[in-house]
């Protein structure tokens, strides 16, 4: 065996093999930590946006839907953010597995750790309203963000299912004119009766809103509930003080 060890030492000398410096391993460990922290942070942001859309869609879910709530629910799930969230969790788990002592822990514990970190950061982001700002920034700066990531665009573009969204173009006596997400005009007949006097704000020209209601006829929509597009903390129904209460047409559910 002494010959063997001399042979190996000879190869080490001939090929000028040297031990890798400590810095190499510190750099490797640092990169691993950095990737875990970064993915946890990004996972947290993704989670906060899932919460944003979930809270937002709650507003629509509690409202009766002519075509059924399941139909509306399936349209309102933020699939893209869910996929990104789970991809990031998988990435965190994959990197955690490469830590020196990770093998001592069962896989489910590593996965829970990955989830826990992102969920905590997600709730913190929601706490200071960061998720709303992030969503607005992405909507402004990222091409195709809306159609792919903004779950509201799909679910609130369903007037036949009692969900409409768009921008207020002008105000009238009985309501306002809305330019929907496709640029079509709607006459919105405002029903003030259902809005509580507490914590209501006035709808404004140029404001983006979502509306729960009923399609009366082509181009006419009865608004039972009007809310700001960006959502808000707590109840925040929009009302139109200058509108007179119309006679509510009778519409039957099928």
């Amino acid at each position, binding site marked *: 065996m002494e010959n063997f060890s001399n042979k190996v030492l000879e190869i080490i000398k001939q090929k000028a093999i040297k031990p*890798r410096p400590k810095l190499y391993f510190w750099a490797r460990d640092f990169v691993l930590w950095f990737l875990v922290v970064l993915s946890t942070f990004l996972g947290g942001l993704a989670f906060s946006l899932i919460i944003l859309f979930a809270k937002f869609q709650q507003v629509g879910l509690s409202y009766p839907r002519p075509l059924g709530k399941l139909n509306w629910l399936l349209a309102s799930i933020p699939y893209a953010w869910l996929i990104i969230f789970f991809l990031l969790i998988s990435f965190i788990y994959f990197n955690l597995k490469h830590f020196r002592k990770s093998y001592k822990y069962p896989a489910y514990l590593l996965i829970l750790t990955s989830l826990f970190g992102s969920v905590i950061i997600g709730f913190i982001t929601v706490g200071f309203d960061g998720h709303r700002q992030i969503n607005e920034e992405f909507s402004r700066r990222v091409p195709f963000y809306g159609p792919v990531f903004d779950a509201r665009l799909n679910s609130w573009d369903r007037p036949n299912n009692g969900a409409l969204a768009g921008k207020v173009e002008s105000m009238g006596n009985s309501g306002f004119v809305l330019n929907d997400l496709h640029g079509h005009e709607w006459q919105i007949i405002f029903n003030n009766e259902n809005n509580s006097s507490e914590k209501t704000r006035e709808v404004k020209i140029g404001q983006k809103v979502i509306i729960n209601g009923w399609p009366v006829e082509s181009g006419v929509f009865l608004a039972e509930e009007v809310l700001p597009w960006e959502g808000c903390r707590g109840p925040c129904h929009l009302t139109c003080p200058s509108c007179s209460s119309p006679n509510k047409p009778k519409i039957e559910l099928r």
Partner: protein
Amino acid sequence: MLQNPEDYSSKTDNELVSLTLGNQVFFAILMNRYSEKLARYVRRISNLSPEEIEDVLQDVFIKVYKNLNDFDQDLKFSSWIYRITHNQVISHHRAKSARPQMVEIDEALANRLRAEIDLNSEMASKDLQSKVSILLASLKPIHREVLVLRFFEEKSYEEISDILKKPNGSVATLIHSAKKELKEKYGKFQQ
């Protein structure tokens, strides 16, 4: 070359690692300490030819030398070098797509395994050695590995966990399944 290598034989593995980082000549003591053990271990989990075993061990020690600064002092050096050897054997198998026909064991080891797994004690020792050897070779690689580490290399559960990079619980489960598989195959073998 070291003048008096015997003076360093009482040094611990960790001390020798530190000395090697200062002077590669000390690496020879570590190699002498581990080369036979590792050669036996490689033979038991793979049954490669002596030349192939030497090639594998050469790669192992060169890898160990290159990564000495990555050695975690909280770990036993033997667990670390066994881990590198285990990984190197897997790489070698992948390259050659080889599977062992027999695993080399001696009579004492065959009897130890028989006692552990409660095989038929009436079987003649001569038969037992070759049968156990063939049976071991027929096991799933991971089952063969844990049995070799536990009963032939006499590693603790903690050491096996460090070598195979699996939680302690998984090691216990693997040993249990390995014994079960060995018993089942022994039963079929007898038929």
